[in-house]
């Protein structure tokens, strides 16, 4: 009897853990882009609407991620820091670093 109770309790804990974990998979993913050695990697990234893009600056100089056409996003990223943007609108977006305009890349939002 006591052993059955223990098993029930254990199953309860496992079920609770599964329920707790389940909503995490529903959170939109964060996709990362690295700024390093004055280059952007990857140079093209495809994400879904609502997903987050995170730029990580591994250089010793400041960078920005600035959407080219209408500055839909424009974030500054200090050395060793990162910045996130939620991609709310579908489309193809070219972006660049305002300080180093030769650093150009693309985010495609589907």
């Amino acid at each position, binding site marked *: 009897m006591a052993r059955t109770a223990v098993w029930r309790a254990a199953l309860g804990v496992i079920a609770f853990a599964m329920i707790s974990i389940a909503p995490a998979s529903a959170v939109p993913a964060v996709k990362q882009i690295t700024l390093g*050695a004055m*280059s952007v990697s990857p140079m093209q990234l495809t994400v879904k609407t609502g997903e987050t893009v995170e730029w990580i600056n591994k250089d010793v*100089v*400041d960078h920005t991620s600035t959407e080219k056409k209408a500055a839909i996003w424009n974030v500054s990223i200090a050395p060793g820091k990162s910045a996130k943007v939620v991609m709310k609108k579908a489309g193809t977006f070219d972006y660049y670093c305002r*300080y*180093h*305009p030769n650093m150009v890349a693309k985010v495609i939002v589907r």
Partner: protein
Amino acid sequence: MQVRFGLIAGAACLVAMPAMAQNTKPNDAQIAHIAYTAGALDVEAGKQALAISKNPEIRAFAEQMVKDHSAVNDQALALVKKLKVTPEDNATSKALSAQAAAKRAELARLTGAAFDKAYVANEIAFHKTVNGALSTTLIPSASNGELKSLLQTGLKLFEGHQLHAEHTAKAAN
């Protein structure tokens, strides 16, 4: 590095580049010195602009030049220390510094829009010249892999600055 920046492309091509071309290719110690000198000269140019200019676009650009080149030169110093290379003064570094002193004196006589225009034009020319030297002489001549890699990153930085200077020139006019 006490020398203030003021190199123009034509002068650099006539003075600095032949100084390298006449000799055999520069060694790593000389390359490190030239690259560091170029960065330090642009830091000094930025400081001069910050002391004279009141134009927000020019000041923002100058601040970025000071920050970027100081950071990259710190990285370069750390690398030469690690490699146990002592940067070696040479004809090219001397020519760059001499041209810088002359240009600095010329810019110091200007104020307002005249200074802003001359400063940013000089920045475009300077970065163009250094880009040429990096891609045709310094990077191909570097024998140490880490130094070569840092120079390649430096080239991308200078190319970025040249473009930024061109944008700043348009915005400031």
